[in-house]
């Protein structure tokens, strides 16, 4: 790939413009072809349709079992690491040789969870020693934490900032920036300033940046705001003489609340990663801030997102950054910050780095959680609309596909295997997102419901529902596992009527086929259709509301 590859769909010419358009059309076209194709097959060749549906259902069942298996393993790993003293490990890495000996000689009277955690830790130390990529001392490592703000009030912002002060990592090594849009209301700006004044003394520094509107080449997206803030931070670090190599940047949503051990865990992951300057660090997002106040379907969907990330965390080979995440500040500066004209900045930054570093860029899973808000609104209908819009925005991550594939076509240094592996996963992921739920809950039943005489006289007409029923019954095992894990993952806060609330949450999972069809697959299909038609999306900020504490 030529080094002048621009990670953007704008200002393209000739072949690049043509390829961009072709790859924009491809995901939507394939999704629609699958849906319409199967619909027509159900009418014209119902036997063939029934066979295809059985083959698909079976494939889906195995994928579901596969995902559930790794969901359980990932959850176990997350719970095993919940008591880990990350700062102890961070300090240990400061003196690697002695620490390695200490760890190697540690007694083995641990619980199974601690044993797994320790084994993984030992392996990480071993790899670090073998590669010789020794980390900087922890006292020289700085964190930059950016919270983008557009319309989030004080009560949304403050818990996240407060959470940072409670961490085990010294907050004197943390620079916090509230990246406020210039177009934000005065009330929001005043709120940000109030937070800054309240917490300025708790950190290395606390900045509030005002991102001007209408900078040439920028769209009104989150990426342009946080990039502006990161550039300000770069100047700050330069002025302070802090090398970028020693800075880890975390780009959070405004409602993100981290666990107290988050920065310590992140520091450890950064230090223990031999390729730390070309890595991102992905925590497990959970949506607990307002989980008991949120609407049922929104809760189920957000839990589904958490589970998806848990499953993904078991496959660092193809892991892509999502939502709130952290990364090497040096890498961020090297690639020219976040894309300033894309909505899906969270995943786009990974692909931008991946292409920039010729495939030598990775995401390191972090078995710690960050908590965000479940989308909610004043009433049920508005919540449906907001959830739909949020999922459509997430699904708009498909905008990465044409750019990434163009990048792959230009790159000669990324291996063909990596191109196929990442390209296929990106493509298949989006097509599956838009089609699977619709196939399972709607189109899969068409051959039987609209069966003509030709089909209703066949054995397959009677066998297919039986096989489908068996498959769906088996799938219930996965659902039950998910249901149990959803209960385990819930915050352990004291809440009134918690028993009944937990029962309701469990029952909500049985509506998952409808929820996923209407509030996940449909928005994804709309996003792909928009890209197909060239009707590009604008950034839309989801409403986040919490009950004020009295």
């Amino acid at each position: 790939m030529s080094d002048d590859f621009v990670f953007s769909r704008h200002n393209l010419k000739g072949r690049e413009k043509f390829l961009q358009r072709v790859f924009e059309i491809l995901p939507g076209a394939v999704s629609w072809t699958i849906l319409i194709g199967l619909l027509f097959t159900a009418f014209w060749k119902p036997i063939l349709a029934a066979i295809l549906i059985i083959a698909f259902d079976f494939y889906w069942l195995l994928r579901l079992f596969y995902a559930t298996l790794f969901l359980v393993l990932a959850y176990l790993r997350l719970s095993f690491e919940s008591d880990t003293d990350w700062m102890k490990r961070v300090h240990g890495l400061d003196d690697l040789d002695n620490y390695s000996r200490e760890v190697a000689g540690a007694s083995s009277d641990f619980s199974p969870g601690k044993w797994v955690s320790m084994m993984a830790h030992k392996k990480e130390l071993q790899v670090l020693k073998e590669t010789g990529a020794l980390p900087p001392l922890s006292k020289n490592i700085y964190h930059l934490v950016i919270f983008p703000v557009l319309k989030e009030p004080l009560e949304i912002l403050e818990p996240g900032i407060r959470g940072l002060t409670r961490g085990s990592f010294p907050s004197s090594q943390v620079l916090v920036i509230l990246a406020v849009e210039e177009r934000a209301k005065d009330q929001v700006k005043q709120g940000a300033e109030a937070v800054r004044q309240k917490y300025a003394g708790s950190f290395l520094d606390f900045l509030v940046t005002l991102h001007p509107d209408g900078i040439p080449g920028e769209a009104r997206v989150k990426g342009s705001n946080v990039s502006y803030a990161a550039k300000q931070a770069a100047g700050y670090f330069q002025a302070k003489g802090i090398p970028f190599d020693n800075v880890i940047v975390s780009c959070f949503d405004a409602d993100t609340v981290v666990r107290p051990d988050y920065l310590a865990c992140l520091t450890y992951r950064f230090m223990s990663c031999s390729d730390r300057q070309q890595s991102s660090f992905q925590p497990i997002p959970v949506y607990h801030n307002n989980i008991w106040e949120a609407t049922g379907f929104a809760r189920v969907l957000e839990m589904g997102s958490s589970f998806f990330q848990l499953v993904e965390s078991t496959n660092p080979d193809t892991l892509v950054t999502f939502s709130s995440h952290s990364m090497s500040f040096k890498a961020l500066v090297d690639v020219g910050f976040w894309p300033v004209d894309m909505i899906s900045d969270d995943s786009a930054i990974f692909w931008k780095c991946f292409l920039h570093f010729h495939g030598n860029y990775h995401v390191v899973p972090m078995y710690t959680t960050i908590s965000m808000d479940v989308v909610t609104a004043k009433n049920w209908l508005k919540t449906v609309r907001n959830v739909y819009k949020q999922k459509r925005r997430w699904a708009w991550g498909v905008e990465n596909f044409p750019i990434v594939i163009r990048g792959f076509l230009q790159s000669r240094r990324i291996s063909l295997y990596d191109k196929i592996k990442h390209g296929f996963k990106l493509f298949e992921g989006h097509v599956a997102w838009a089609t699977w739920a619709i196939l399972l809950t709607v189109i899969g039943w068409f051959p039987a419901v609209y069966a003509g005489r030709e089909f209703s006289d066949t054995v397959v007409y009677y066998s297919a529902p039986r096989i489908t029923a068996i498959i769906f019954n088996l799938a219930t095992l996965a659902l039950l596992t998910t249901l149990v894990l959803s209960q385990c993952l819930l915050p352990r806060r004291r809440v009134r009527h918690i028993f009944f609330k937990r029962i309701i949450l469990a029952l909500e999972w049985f509506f998952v086929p409808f929820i996923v069809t209407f509030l996940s697959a449909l928005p994804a299909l709309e996003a792909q259709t928009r890209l197909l038609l060239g009707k590009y999306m604008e950034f839309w900020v989801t409403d986040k509301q919490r009950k004020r504490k009295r």
Partner: protein
Amino acid sequence: MLLLRRIFFYLFLAIYLIACPMTILYALGYILKPGTEKGLVKTGLIYISTVPSGASVYIDNKRYTRRTPAILRDLLPGNYPIRISLKNYRSWFQNIPVEAEKATALEKILFVPTELKREQLSPEPFERLIPIEKSRYFLLATGSRPGDLFICDWKQEKIRPLFQKGDPLGEGNVLSFYSVPGGVSFLLLVHVRGGEKYLWVEMGDKECRVEDVSVCFPEEPLQVVWESHDKNHLFSIHDNYVNRVDIAGRSVVPRYLENIRGLGLFHKSIYALRGDSLLERLDYDRKPKEMLLNDAALGSSLFGAKGLFQIHVLDNDIILFQGARGELLANRLPYRFLEEGTIGYEYYASRERALVWRKEDIGILAFSKPAKNEEIFEKGPRLHWVYQRGQKIEQAFWVYEGSHILFRDENRVSLLEIETHGKPHLYSLLKVKRKTDVFYAESTGKLYYLDSESECLSSVEILPRQEILPLTFTEKNEKKKSEIEGL
């Protein structure tokens, strides 16, 4: 974790590659058979659903483990003697063919009890039962006077007199009775001293309204037609002309249409067969809307030069014509279906077929379009006779979603199962009072009749509605193979 992912990936891949083709083959009807014919063999199945459910199924006198509804799977192609039995019901037996990869569906087997559940609904005897097709009421008569008429609400199974004792309108002799399907009103022509009078009766939940509308009928009509619930637009058909009657306004427009040989109504349109044998559609204000038959030569060859026809518009595009001699025609090839003797018909809309009966025969006229074939001569619907051993068939009804026919042959009521793979099963059910009608309501599954001995109103359950299980999607399809071939 990565290693584990790889191991499970290949494990699941192997499972998929092996199990998925096997599952699909099984779905198609292939099984792995041990023994002399070992290897993959094609099979078929038989699906059996009965009312009532829970019947035992026997193949070759060997009892199948499951009760109905049941699917008998993995059957090698061939004929299977199937017997289905349920305690207190007559057994069902037939040789059922099974083809490879095919399903033979016996979806609507209706068991007939060994002892019918009869219920007497009235203590007093009646002379006649007068049905009103598709209505929630029928009439009962103890004599020939209007005052001898009773209304039966069969949904509530309540009987009440049409007139209070001493009501002057109840005097005279009923000469004619006019009603339309689904209506809650009817017209009576009554002979009284000094002439004739016309009574318009509107039946309600609690009481009936009877009005003398003689002023609307200056002459005795041959037929009176109207759309149910529209009493402002009645059309009395006379020899060669039609009067328009407004019951509510007590007015009549004489000779509203002239030179007319038949008239039918449908969705506020008049279908008029003109004297020149052309068929025209008009609105109620006589404004022409469409010429439906514009070929005079074809018209006269179909309808002849004279004679009155009843016109029944069954659907937007299916029209039946019943002539005075019992000719039966339709606007579908080959147009003329019966030359004479048609006594009645009943149309089953969702399956687009009509039950037609003559004195000795019962037939089915299927209007659903057949699959396209290679023949260059277009084939229209055919009248397929399903029963030809009648003595004096006077009434017939569709039962159980068109799978059975209930008919009255003189005073004998029988049930004919028509969706079968062999000879249709015929069950003789009961004897009823002679020279009067019966009434069957599919929604309750009951037959209402006057008992042959006591002459009291009685009912018998033909189709136990509470026993019909909610249909699964596999059962919803109405077009099944098990229909009589050729329909």
